[in-house]
């Protein structure tokens, strides 16, 4: 436990120092890593912990991003206020989507969520919504400046803002998963008949897991919109949903730290793949993906856990 706290402390210090050591473009990329980490933690709550597969979480990411962009663009809302607002909207949307999804399991749930993911970009282009969503053009938003005259350029300020939100979301997620609720979610995944016999309201918990999961992903979407300064339907295609799923599997299912490893993977491996081969970057990405799951079948987090227990055993 003490080792873990020390490690977390070092991690936070490094995270605070990093933007001063790298270019502002790299800082922007690191901001996206944090954004994806929140999204992956959200998906992991649903899929890793609760066992409900989602091939459509890109839709909640998109919803969060658009909430943020519309609130800033149309209502002139401050950037810090749109993040919880997007989370709230996605919480409700996720819960409502989770209700009918209760009837579906395994591959059937995968199809239903896939449908959501496929439909979302087109819903965002729907012409009756155009005056809000900006249609195919999307919405451009300004990058927030550091407040109170803090001498930080916008990219670095946004990184720290995102880091603070990430820490809050991870503490909330950790609290949720390590106690009564986390056990109930895993119990439902492991043995749903027994979980109900132990007094767990499976249907309610599964819907709430959907809502909470969507909330995390929506918060990530809002932060992502601030970082990219732009939302458009085609940035939230079904490919994004699949990449999220890749992220949680590579990072480690049912692992909180796995979300961070997965985020590093989905942010940087495509870049590395692109540098290796301009012609077929996704083929290289595929090789990386297969390599990771082959070498670390329980994800990066699982591999690290295994290493630590082995070292302790020695």
């Amino acid at each position, binding site marked *: 436990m003490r080792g873990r706290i020390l490690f977390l402390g070092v991690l936070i210090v490094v995270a605070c120092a990093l933007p001063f050591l790298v270019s502002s473009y790299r800082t922007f990329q690191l901001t996206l890593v944090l954004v994806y980490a929140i999204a992956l933690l959200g998906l992991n709550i649903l899929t890793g912990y609760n066992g409900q597969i989602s091939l459509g979480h890109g839709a909640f990411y998109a919803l969060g991003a658009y909430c943020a962009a519309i609130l800033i663009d149309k209502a002139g809302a401050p950037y810090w206020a749109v993040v919880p607002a997007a989370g709230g909207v996605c919480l409700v949307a996720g819960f409502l989507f989770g209700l009918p999804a209760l009837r579906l399991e395994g591959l059937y749930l995968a199809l239903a969520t896939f449908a959501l993911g496929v439909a979302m970009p087109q819903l965002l282009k729907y012409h009756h919504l155009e005056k809000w969503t900006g249609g195919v053009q999307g919405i451009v938003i300004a990058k927030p400046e550091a407040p109170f005259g803090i001498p930080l350029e916008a990219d670095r300020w946004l990184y720290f803002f995102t880091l603070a939100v990430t820490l809050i979301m991870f503490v*909330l*997620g950790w*609290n*949720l998963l390590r*106690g*009564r*609720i*986390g*056990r*109930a979610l*895993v*119990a439902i*995944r*492991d*043995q749903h*008949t*027994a*979980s*109900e*016999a*132990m*007094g*767990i*309201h*499976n249907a309610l918990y599964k819907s*709430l897991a959907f809502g*909470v999961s969507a909330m995390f992903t929506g918060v990530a979407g809002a932060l992502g919109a601030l970082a990219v300064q732009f939302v458009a339907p085609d940035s939230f295609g079904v490919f994004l949903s699949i990449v999220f799923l890749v992220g949680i599997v590579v990072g480690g299912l*049912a692992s909180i730290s796995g979300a961070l490893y997965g985020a590093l993977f989905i942010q940087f491996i495509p870049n590395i793949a692109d540098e290796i081969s301009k012609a077929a970057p996704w083929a290289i990405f595929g090789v990386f993906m297969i390599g990771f799951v082959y070498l670390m079948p329980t994800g990066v987090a699982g591999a690290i856990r295994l290493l630590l227990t082995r070292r302790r055993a020695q």
Partner: protein
Amino acid sequence: MVQSEAQPLLRVKDVAVHFGGIVALDGVSFEVARGRIVGLIGPNGAGKTTLFNCVSRLYDCDRGEIAFDGGSLLAVPRHRVAALGIGRTFQNLALFRSMSVLDNVMVGYHCRSRGGFLANALRLPHAVRAERRTAAKAREVLALLGLGALAAKPVAELPFGTQKRVELARALASEPKLLLLDEPASGLNHEEVGELGALIRELRERLQLTILLVEHHMSLVMGIADWVVALNFGRRIAEGAPHEVRLHPELVRAYLGG
């Protein structure tokens, strides 16, 4: 509502269950008095587990009535059954296989503890207290069953007999009034069956339990049950004290054929 002590804890009346054209239970009635150990016996397919699943609300009855502690069970949703005071184990283990022994048993206390998503995410004081109470309760039950040393072990790594015991601990953590044991002795060797019988009796005394037991091990049932109900083809064919039922011609016929 005041419950008289004389009133049976569980009353099963004329319960019938069909699966398609198959009659699993056909008008079964019996009562389980408070503090008793009642054995439910019968050959394979007699409807014993079906009856268990009706009492824990996994199956709906097509006909009949099941009353627990004076109130009807049939309108109670599945996830409320544990809170009423009905705990159970499963015929083929139904543990949470990715969890530790302690966590499995802590889930058993779920129905007695409070604290929802928000309270846990924010770690509000009452959620923290509930968590501490849950852990204490689980450790207490593990100690009672002699599993204390295994608390941190992943449950899937334990031998079958020990896993059965963990399942029993999980059921006890919910502080049941009525404990449903579905073939607790299956897969145990002769010596372990003897120990189990003694344990069940001891638990009844210490925790003031009423126990309904499905079991194939005739020696176990006859050794510990106060009352035995025999089923065959979904019907009750005999009922009485163990020594009476043992020689009942219907039961002898059911087991030996003919």
